[in-house]
Each structure stands twice: as C-alpha cells, then as structure tokens.
C-alpha cells in the first residue's frame, strides 16, 4: 500500500472514521492508483493536486461522506477571540489583587510603627483606649497624617477601589471559566465535524 494511502488511513483513524469504512475507502484508492500506474500513469492522474496533501484529501473525503466522529471525541479549544480577553481579564485581576495585598501590608507596617511610637511616646491606657485613642485593630485601616506614608483622600479612594477592582476582575474571570458562563459554548453535543449528516445518525446501511 502506498505511503499516500497509509497517510490517509492515519488521518481517518485520527478523525474517528469507523474501520470498515476506512478499509473500503483505502481499498478503492489503492485499486485506482494501481490501475493508473499499470497504465503508465501515476497517482496524480487519479488524485489531481490532492496527491500533495494526503491528510487534507482524507479529511475532505471523509467529511463529504459524513463518516467522521462527533466533536465530543476531540474537544475543541476555545477560540482565540475568547481566550485573549479572559487572559487579559485574569491578568488584570491578579494585578489588582497583588496591589491590594501590597497596600494592606504597607498600611499594616506603617500602622504598627506608628502604634509603637505612640505607645512609647505616651504610654498608658488613656492613649490607647481613652478619648482620641484608636484601637490598633481600627488603626490599621485608619487614614491620616499621623500614620505616615501616603495620605489624603486619593489614597483612601485607592485603598477602597483597588481591592474592589481585584474582586470584580477575579469574579469575572472565575465566571468566564465556569460552566455557567454566558460566554461558554452551549449544546456542543451531537454536532458533526463534517458537513451534513453523520454516519451514526443516519441508521441506514453504509
């Protein structure tokens, strides 16, 4: 059997063409090529320019006959136009999450330093819990010049917006990858790779 027919058989196997049908097509092809060669011709006389691309030829023939396996056998990758946005979305989510973590760590460090300094400078419960005092728990999140570092309302705004943006982006990315995603493919079952009907749905002799 020629290398061309062998290549076709590999492609039919990959496409899930049932063996009896693949055997039949291979036998017909072999017989035709051998006849052409016996008459002094070549495989090109039988196959035209398809002789240069056996895989494409095999897929085209099987597709035309409707004998390829369903898509379920070979799950599709999501198309690039859907993958790129979600990768970008995930990257944004990660960026904002890291920014939020860095912000919290930075504020905690600044708060701790200021707390120690405040306690050493003016020790006593009145400073910590008395009028004007702030519990260390709340001090961590308190914004103001007394804690050092970035201050003012723009910083306060960022401190709220960045974690919020991280949560939103992470939520959207998770939603995209979940089965409930409005962007996910639906009803992938039972579709045919090739055009028209498929061999398993016809129920007729083939």
């Amino acid at each position: 059997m020629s290398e061309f027919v062998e290549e076709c058989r590999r492609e039919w196997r990959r496409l899930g063409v049932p063996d009896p049908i693949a055997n039949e097509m291979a036998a017909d092809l072999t017989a035709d090529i051998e006849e052409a060669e016996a008459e002094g011709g070549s495989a090109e006389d039988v196959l035209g320019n398809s002789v240069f691309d056996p895989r494409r030829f095999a897929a085209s023939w099987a597709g035309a006959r409707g004998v390829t396996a369903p898509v379920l056998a070979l799950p599709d990758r999501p198309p690039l136009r859907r993958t790129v946005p979600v990768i970008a979305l995930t990257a944004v989510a990660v960026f904002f999450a890291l920014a939020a973590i860095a912000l919290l760590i930075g504020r905690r460090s600044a708060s701790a330093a200021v707390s120690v300094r405040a306690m050493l400078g003016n020790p006593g419960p009145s400073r910590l819990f008395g009028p004007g005092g702030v519990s260390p728990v709340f001090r961590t999140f308190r914004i103001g010049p007394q804690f050092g570092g970035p201050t003012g309302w723009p910083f306060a705004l960022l401190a709220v917006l960045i974690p919020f943006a991280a949560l939103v982006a992470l939520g959207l990315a998770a939603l995209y990858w979940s089965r409930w995603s409005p962007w996910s493919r639906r009803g992938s079952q039972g579709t045919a790779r090739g055009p028209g009907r498929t061999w398993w749905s016809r129920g007729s002799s083939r």
Partner: protein
Amino acid sequence: MADAEGRRSQLLRGVLDICLLAVMGEGPAYGYEMTKRLRARGLSIVGEGSIYPLLGRLERDGLVETRRAASNGGPPRKYYSLSPEGERVLEEGKTEWQATRDAVDGALGLVKAEVMP
C-alpha cells in the same frame, strides 16, 4: 497564465458534480473509470483536486447508488450509478448550465443578442 488556470478551476468546480452525474449516466463506473471518462471528453482533473470527495457528497445526498463488484481481473471496486434523484438533478443541471452559458456568451459578445423592436 495562473489566472486563466484559476478561473478554469473555479468554473469547473461549479459544474463538476453535473459532469460526474453525466458520465455515470453512460453506465456504472468506479472512481478512476470516471476520471478517464472525463479526460476522454477533455476534462482533466489535474489541478482540480480529486473526484472522491465529490463522489462522497453525491452518495450522501442520495444522487448516486453504489454497489461493490469485481472489476476486470482486478480487486472488487465500488461502482457508482445514477439514482432516480440523481437523474432528475442531472437534467436540472443541464438546463441551468445551458441558461448560464447562453447568458455568459451574450455578455461576452460571443453571440448576437436579438433585440425586439
């Protein structure tokens, strides 16, 4: 030259199924036999791709009937013949082709169109 070949290829692609049905109308034939019949009428498939996918589509659409039979001293072959639906489609195809050919001939000035006064 490449443009001329490309145009010829495009033109043939649109009528190759009708041509296959026509040569099948002369009697049952296997794949390569049909190729030879087409070539004998001046239609070479070299450059047009193979007829096998087209035969597969005709079979799937019910325009041809198939049976396996021994060829002349060779292995069993798959013989294709026209189904009743295929005969009907062939006749329609001939009519469509004649109408298209006449219109194109007129557009290209290959025939003088008669203009009614």
